[in-house]
Structures are given as structure tokens and as C-alpha cells.
């Protein structure tokens, strides 16, 4: 048998089909700013790390973690939700080129360190207590963060559960997509629902959230009135104050003691908290207890698909130029869900128009 023929067969065995994401590279080609960025792309610039960290922190509590994870040189493998892993050293610029959409999920696995916050839950994904779709404009000069109420009743497409069992398509609360099907399912649900292509779904565990805020040395917020909520294990006086990680977490999860008890109010509080984190990170970069922050961040992030070191670096570089004030926080327009007034359904056409704008900016 011919050696070239054998070699060709061998090559076919090694071959991979191009993924749909290859199209992003096309966008990179047509985006002048991405072209010039690539031309001078080098390694991470140490001098800008603090600024990068602070500004990148600027997006949301979850994105805060992305650039910091990569600042630790020893980071080499990102665990994927399906238990697989992907080694670092892959692509770089796909996350910096063109618009980028991130689905951030604050997850509440209530396992391990989180068990004290509720009964031990064994479901793989855990509950998603907050969902934010973040859209970064192609020029990385602005971002939109759209909070998605977890009580939203939406069509959830067919997904595969933790045990590989197929979960049929059904209508349910949006946070059940993550609880039952993990990041993959949450992402598919959002994509189907909004028409916005999600580049990365990122889950952050609440216990990590706590650790990160502690590493920041706490965050400052102002409360309109005192809070005493045994459910969130939170007692706070009214007025301006510093919250530690534990308290900030309680504040974020607070549902009944402030406002009207709706999920919308809770989202507002989470947005307040995100801003507080941004501010803290931007104001006091040098007080950051980096090792603690990294430890907390690294232990609590899951991404889908797995982001490797270079991709995270690239993402952080992309975020570095963004001002915290350039992030617009929004909430999906909702109304009560007719069959159950305690649930929400998305208000149309407003919700559709919001996502259409984002989707069209994502091309």
C-alpha cells in the first residue's frame, strides 16, 4: 500500500469539521479595530493588569472573575460542566473580535460550602438565581446587561439532563433550564428565546461570589430602610454601609424584606450590588487581596464552551477599554403570567424588540 495513501487516511482520521464559530473569524476580518488589535497583539501587558482588572470588573459580578482567573499564571485547565476539560493554549482572539454575548448565571448549587443556605440539593446544575445576558458591542466601548427574571415562564427546548436523559421541550420557569440541563440547556433556551447567539455561558457559584466580595474588602451600598430577613439570614441597619461577602450575598438574594417582594426588586438589588462591585474594583484596585480573589473566582466559575487561558486573556483585554459607566443595566420587560399571577411572562413586543436590537448588533 502506498505511503501517501496511508498518510491521507491517517489525516482524515485526525481531521475535525469546522465549527459554526469559525464564522466569527470572518467578522474579525471585516472589523478594522479587530484587525489592528491583532496586529499588535502580544502577551499580557503586566502594567495594565490592575487597570484591566478594575475595568473588566466593570461588567458584572461574574465577569469580574474572568480576567482575574487568567491573571494567575498557573491556570491551565478549565473544567467543563460535562466533566470534560480542555487544555489551555488554544485560540486567542475570537473573544476580542466583533460583538460578544455572554450569558451569566448566578448559580445556587447549595452543595458543599453553599449547603448552609438551604437543603442539600443534588441536581447537577443547581438553581439559577440570577441570569444576565451581557452584550458587548463590537468596539468594546459599551455593554448592555439584561437581567432575566427567573420566574419567567418560557418555552424550554429539548435538552439533555445530567444523566444524559433527554428532557422533552416544555414550558417552564426559565431557571429550570439550568437546574435540569446545565449550562448547555440554559444557553440553548436563551438563544431560542431571544434569537441572540450566546458565545459563552458562564456560571458562577454563590459561594464564590461571597469570597470575591470579601477579597475586594467588601462593597458599599445604601439601604433605604433596615433589613431583617431570617430567610436570607440578613440583618442590616438603614443607610450607607459596607457589606461583607456574606451580607452582600444575603442582600442579593433578599426577596421579601425590601421592596414589593418580587423578583424584579431582587434583580434591582443585584444590579445595585453589581455597580457597587464595579465601583469598588475601580476605586481601590490596589487593596484587592488578589490571591483570595483568585481562589474564590477560580473555584466558582464554569464556562460553556470552556474558555482557555488565552481566550480569557483576550476577553479581558477586550474589556479593558470599557468604562463601568458604559454598561447599561436593563431587565426584560415582563407582565404577570396569566395562568399563574406569581409567575411572569415576557411583555411583547417590547422584549422581542430589545433582543432584536441586541441580535442585530451581534452580526
Amino acid at each position, binding site marked *: 500500500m502506498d505511503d501517501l495513501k496511508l498518510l491521507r487516511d491517517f489525516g482524515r482520521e485526525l481531521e475535525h469539521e469546522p465549527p459554526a464559530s*469559525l464564522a466569527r473569524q470572518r467578522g474579525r476580518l471585516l472589523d478594522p479595530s479587530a*484587525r489592528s488589535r491583532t496586529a499588535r497583539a502580544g502577551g499580557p501587558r503586566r502594567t495594565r493588569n490592575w487597570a484591566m482588572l478594575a475595568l473588566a470588573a466593570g461588567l458584572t459580578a461574574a465577569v469580574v472573575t474572568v480576567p482575574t482567573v487568567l491573571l494567575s499564571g498557573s491556570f491551565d485547565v478549565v473544567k467543563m460542566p460535562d466533566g470534560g476539560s480542555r487544555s489551555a493554549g*488554544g485560540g486567542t482572539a475570537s473573544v476580542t473580535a466583533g460583538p460578544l454575548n455572554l450569558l451569566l448565571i448566578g448559580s445556587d448549587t447549595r452543595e458543599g460550602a453553599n449547603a448552609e443556605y438551604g437543603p442539600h440539593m443534588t441536581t447537577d446544575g443547581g438553581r439559577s438565581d440570577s441570569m444576565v445576558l451581557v452584550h458587548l458591542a463590537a468596539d468594546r466601548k459599551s455593554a448592555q446587561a439584561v437581567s432575566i427574571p427567573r420566574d419567567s415562564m418560557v418555552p424550554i427546548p429539548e435538552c439533555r439532563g445530567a444523566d444524559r436523559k433527554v428532557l422533552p421541550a416544555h414550558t417552564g420557569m426559565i431557571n429550570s433550564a439550568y437546574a435540569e440541563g446545565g449550562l448547555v440547556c440554559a444557553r440553548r433556551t436563551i438563544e431560542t428565546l431571544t434569537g441572540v447567539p450566546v458565545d459563552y455561558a458562564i456560571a458562577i457559584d454563590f459561594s464564590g461570589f461571597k469570597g470575591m466580595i470579601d477579597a475586594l474588602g467588601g462593597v458599599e451600598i445604601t439601604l433605604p430602610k433596615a433589613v431583617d430577613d431570617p430567610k436570607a439570614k440578613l440583618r442590616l441597619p438603614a443607610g450607607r454601609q459596607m457589606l461583607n461577602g456574606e451580607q452582600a450575598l444575603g442582600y442579593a438574594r433578599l426577596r421579601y424584606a425590601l421592596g414589593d417582594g418580587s423578583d424584579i426588586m431582587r434583580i434591582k438589588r443585584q444590579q445595585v450590588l453589581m455597580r457597587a462591585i464595579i465601583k469598588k474594583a475601580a476605586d481601590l484596585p490596589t487593596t484587592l487581596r488578589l490571591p483570595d480573589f483568585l481562589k474564590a473566582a477560580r473555584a466558582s466559575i464554569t464556562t460553556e464552551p470552556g474558555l482557555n487561558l488565552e481566550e480569557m486573556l483576550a476577553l479581558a483585554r477586550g474589556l479593558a477599554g470599557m468604562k463601568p459607566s458604559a454598561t447599561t443595566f436593563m431587565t426584560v420587560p415582563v407582565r404577570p403570567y396569566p395562568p399563574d399571577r406569581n409567575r411572569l411572562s415576557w411583555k411583547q413586543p417590547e422584549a422581542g424588540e430589545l433582543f432584536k436590537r441586541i441580535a442585530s448588533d451581534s452580526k
Partner: protein
Amino acid sequence: MVRPLTAIPADRVRDSDLIGESRTDPEAFAALFDRYSSMLYRYVSRRLGPEVAEDLVGETFLIAFARRDRYDAAYADARPWLFGIVTKLVSRHRRAESARYRALLRSPAEEMVDFPDDRVASGVTARSARPALARALAALPARDRDVLLLIAWGDLSYEEVARALDIPVGTVRSRLNRARKKVRAALGDTNPMHEEE
């Protein structure tokens, strides 16, 4: 049964015309991407795996775009030009490439047992030859490997390889011969049945 990695329909706009057009209309260059990005992705995925391939292909087109003014319009087919850029970028990952081939040597043994009947009859199969090929590729000097794989996996002709690597055709021939000799020797080591040509 052999699916070509590259196939060019005859009746279409020449690559060189697209490149020429892109000097004034950058969008035209995207057509070149649509034409060849998948082909280049597959090629790179063979040599370096899928993790690096996407980005490397993106970079290839960015470099090509930046150099489009210097493209010699006498060549209608841009593949050798693009493969040349790809080869330079792949060479930055030389160690990873060798490691990738070596890693294939450690793949599970049972894979080697399971071949279809028709191939068993031929005595040598791609599967059974796999360790030998992997070992040979890992050990080849990069220059020889580039030539061998542009021919075997990139489906380029000798002349096209010469253009891609900017070397004389004679050099292509000698590097290819040297590389094939080593591959055949490696195959011979593991397959006493293998007949030298």
C-alpha cells in the same frame, strides 16, 4: 471514496480577481474566507487539533488581508498563498504538533484491532499504520514535514508547494523524497508485510 480536501469549481470568479477587488472593497476579501476557511480549518485541525485551528485560520486571513496588495495576480488560485501563510503559523506550534502525533501513539490498543474486512485483506490499514505514521511525523524535520503534508493533506502540487513555501520545485522534490523515505521506513519497521515501491 477519497474525498478531496480541496475542490475548485471551474466556473467562478478567480481568487486573484477577488483579491484585486478587495484592494478597494475590503468586503470582497470575505468571499475568499468563505471559499477557503473550512478547507484551511480542516488542514490545521489535522496538524494541530481543533483547539488552535479556529484562531489560526482567522489569523491566516488577517495576515493575507494585510498583504493583499502584494498578491501576484498572475496566479488565479490563492490556495498556495494561503497555505504558505498557514504553514508559517503552524510552525510556531512545532512542538505542540510533534506532541500531538506522539500522543496518538498512546491511544488505546483496542482501536488497532478493529478493522473492516476489506482493509484486513490489504494487509496494511491506516489504523494499523497509525502508530508508525504518528511516530514518523513527530520525528520529521519541520521543513520536510511541511512539504509532505502540503502534498498529502493539502492536496497541493509540487509547483504549488514551491510557491507556498517560496522554494524551488527541486527543493520540494528532494524534501518530499526524504520525508517519504522516512515514513516508509517507519511503516516497514512495524509492517513486515509492507512492500517497498
